[in-house]
């Protein structure tokens, strides 16, 4: 499981750096692949061009993304035979009711609000890491490949 990648979909470079820092601080050693928007995330997941598709252990996705929003991206992930079972966690700023409803309607596995307090954020990412990388079980067919 150490080899499994985490796909972080985040357009804000600050947030990206902070998320990576928080994950590292909470002893998550998995390789983190970053996509800057929904379209990039999908091309990584579906393996467009000469890239082979990646199968991350968990996708941490921001809600507000350029080009294609987090919820649209999620809908595409759920619509694809190979990726529909992948755990997707909305890791976002807002706790607006409408965002949560839309995310769950689109089939999100978890909705987590990023705290402003970095210490708190680190503890959140640590819990996410423990849960999705260690505790959570998935069938053999859906087990991610280390890539």
């Amino acid at each position: 499981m150490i080899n499994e990648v985490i796909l972080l979909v985040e357009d804000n470079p600050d947030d990206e750096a902070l998320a990576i820092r928080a994950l590292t601080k909470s002893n998550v050693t998995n390789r983190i692949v970053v996509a800057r928007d929904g379209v990039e995330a999908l091309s990584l997941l579906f393996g467009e061009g000469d890239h082979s598709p990646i199968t991350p252990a968990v996708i941490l996705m921001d809600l507000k993304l350029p080009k294609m929003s987090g919820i649209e991206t999620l809908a595409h992930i759920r619509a694809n035979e190979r990726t529909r079972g992948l755990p997707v966690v909305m890791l976002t700023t807002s706790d607006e009711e409408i965002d949560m409803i839309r995310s769950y309607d689109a089939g999100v596995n978890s909705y987590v609000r990023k705290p402003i307090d970095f210490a708190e954020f680190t503890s959140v990412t640590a819990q996410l890491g423990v849960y999705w990388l260690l505790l959570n079980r998935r069938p053999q067919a859906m087990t991610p490949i280390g890539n």
Partner: protein
Amino acid sequence: MSAIIEYLFGAASFVPHGYCLLWRPDLVAIHAVSDFLIALSYFLIPFGIWYFARRRDDLVFKPVFFLFAAFILFCGITHLIALTTLWFPIYGAQGLVKAATAAISLASAYALWPTIPKALAIPGLSNLRKANEEMAEVVSEREALVAARTAELTAAYREMEAFAYSVAHDLRTPLRSINGFSDALAEEHGERLAAPGKQMVERIQQASLRMGKLIDDLLNMSRLTRTPIQVSEVNISELAETIIDDFRRDDPARTVKADIAPDIVVKCDPNLMRIALTHLLSNAWKFTAKRADAHIEFDCARSQGKNLFDIRDNGVGFDMAYASKLFVPFHRLHSETEFPGNGIGLAIAARIIHRHGGDISAEASLGKGTIVSFSL
């Protein structure tokens, strides 16, 4: 008796009217037929008037109508008698009937004249039609105004939604950077910072958290206006008890006497009311913190179909000079170091009470306590 009959119908001393016409058949005929037809018409007309006046409930001057009906009826009788006198000289009866007709005619004429100006003042059909048209115009103008206002409100509401959404997403993001990179700065480059420098970083972090809390409160406040009210029967007493119980659990060191009037049941939104009561009671709890004999009372009285509530405490109170600013969001009457909080509680409570169509006010005396009153 016989003298009266003789006077009325006695024919002995008179000749029939026909004699005056020398019994010329054409003259007798024209008098007889005309009197008969006039009498017939004069009997039919009052019947019509009487029927009309009885059926029209909204008829004004009804007595005048009935008077006219009687007047025409009597005229009919005089013509009938005139017809009779062509052959039978009952001039006594004729005189009497004429006298009665004269009386009733006079009464009708007397009643008619003062009625005319009043009747003129009653709008006619064309006046009514014109008034109706004007009214319809006003109504359609008002409707257009209402539609325009509604559109304006809807647009403003949408704008507020978009604004709140943008605040929820975009205003917090830089705060995370400020807090996160301050943390990284202290941790990774802390050795290059002297103690005051480290303190400054600490302050930056605290400020970012405070602003985060402010944004959250602002959003919660706007959310109160954006979510629709769902009313059900709520036991306010039980609600207040559970809120106070929560305070006791969170703050076991304090001894606070709480008197809550039992079994107050009110129709309101349970979630919103919980928020409002929590803010109001938490103020009472907070501002009695410096007293050993802290006392909170919650009462309800009914007046003019409204429930009037009082939340009373014996805390620090406030200067009534600032009472008007009490319900303004983020406006505080105490310093942050004296009592914690950011001044949103009462504003939120007031907004919830207002959304229920109620009113809220506060009264206090410095050092003696506060009474917050609200109606539902």
